[in-house]
Every structure is written in structure tokens, then in C-alpha cells.
């Protein structure tokens, strides 16, 4: 195994661990921030006639958080992708597909934030200087589109490699 490959494996293993931690932390954060209070309200409202209002509030919160759920999907796929890189499977069609799926999740996040999230398309305002003209959701969507295309290029490269591997 050459040096570049070793470095790729080492870095990928670290990233896989980081993405796994981020995923579980994100899941916990989503539960505590978004689902815990409405769930508690729903359980408390069970014996009362306000149960439907509480259920509606919970579903509204869950719908508001759909962009975050899509990002969780992206994190989970990224974890798998870097896990595969760490196993030494760098240039494979499956890796290209995973990269495209990550981009797809980012695009889905943009799509859901446009449909459901009330906080969507709010320009990011930095503490200093002029506010950014584009929202973080749109920026994420652009990154997603880029990743989808990069994934396709990756798949094409993997196909070329497979072809070259058949030349002895």
C-alpha cells in the first residue's frame, strides 16, 4: 500500500468516526430540540380533549424539521462512504453512488426547507460586515448539486478503472 493510499485510509477512518458521532449527536439534538416538548405535550394531553391539537403540533414540528432529517440522511450516507474508503474501496461504482446520494440528500434538504420549514430562506446574518446575500439552505443545495455531479464523475472514473484492471 503506497503512502497516498495509507493517508486516504487513515483520514477516511477519522472522518467516518466524526460523521458517526455527528449523526448520533444530531439525532439526539433533533429529539431534544424538536420532538421532546411536543411529545411531552401529546402524552400530557392524552386524557384530555386537546389531544388532537397536541398531535397537530407534533406533526407540524416534525414537518418543520424535515430538512434536518434529510441532512441526517446525508450524514449517515457520508459515514458509510468514508467507512468504505477506510476499508480501501476508494474508486468503486458504489462510492460514486454514495457521493451522489449525499448530494441528493442535500438537495432534498433544500427542497423540504422550501416546502415545510417556516425558517427557510432567511439570509444568514453574520455578527460583523454585510449579510450574506444567499441563505445557507441555497448554499447547501448548490453543494448538493455539485456532489451529485461529482458522484457521477466518480462513477465514470470507477468504470474506467474497472476497464483498465482488465488489462494485464
Amino acid at each position: 500500500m503506497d503512502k497516498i493510499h495509507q493517508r486516504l485510509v487513515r483520514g477516511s477512518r477519522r472522518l467516518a468516526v466524526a460523521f458517526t458521532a455527528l449523526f448520533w449527536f444530531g439525532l439526539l439534538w433533533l429529539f431534544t430540540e424538536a420532538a421532546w416538548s411536543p411529545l411531552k405535550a401529546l402524552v400530557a394531553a392524552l386524557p384530555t380533549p386537546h389531544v388532537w391539537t397536541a398531535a397537530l403540533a407534533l406533526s407540524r414540528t416534525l414537518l418543520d424539521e424535515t430538512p434536518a432529517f434529510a441532512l441526517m440522511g446525508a450524514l449517515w450516507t457520508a459515514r458509510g462512504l468514508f467507512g468504505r474508503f477506510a476499508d480501501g474501496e476508494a474508486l468503486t461504482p458504489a462510492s460514486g453512488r454514495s457521493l451522489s446520494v449525499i448530494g441528493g440528500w442535500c438537495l432534498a434538504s433544500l427542497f423540504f426547507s422550501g416546502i415545510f420549514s417556516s425558517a427557510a430562506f432567511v439570509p444568514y446574518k453574520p455578527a460583523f460586515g454585510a449579510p450574506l446575500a444567499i441563505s445557507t439552505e441555497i448554499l447547501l443545495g448548490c453543494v448538493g448539486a455539485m456532489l451529485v455531479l461529482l458522484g457521477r464523475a466518480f462513477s465514470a472514473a470507477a468504470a474506467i478503472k474497472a476497464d483498465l484492471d482488465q488489462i494485464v
Partner: protein
Amino acid sequence: MPIIVRLDVMLALRKVKARDIAEQIGLNETNLSLLRSGKVKGVRFETLAKLCEALDCKPGDLLDFEP
């Protein structure tokens, strides 16, 4: 594919084992087996040269064309 690999014939003529040749030219045994059975898309000039050197033959002795 009209290209026929005659490596098997050459190995038999020289009375050499495929494993020994693979080791001698530094080629994977699996790849040599694939080459012998003609299940490859191509052969590098480098590999061909090594095979010719090891088996003391010419590329034409290893490859044939049957339309």
C-alpha cells in the same frame, strides 16, 4: 474475439508452470490465469515483453489471429 492467446501452448512447449512464470515476471497468478484463458481486455507491451523474455519466444508465438 478473433485474438487467440497461445500462452498455454508455449508453457507446455517450454515445460514451465504458470505459477513459476507468474513469479518470474512479477504478475499476479490470477491475472496470468485470466490471460491464459483469454478473459482479458488487453495485454500491456511491458507484460508481453516480460513473457517473451521468460519463455524465449516472440509475441507472435503467444498471440494469434483467427478471423
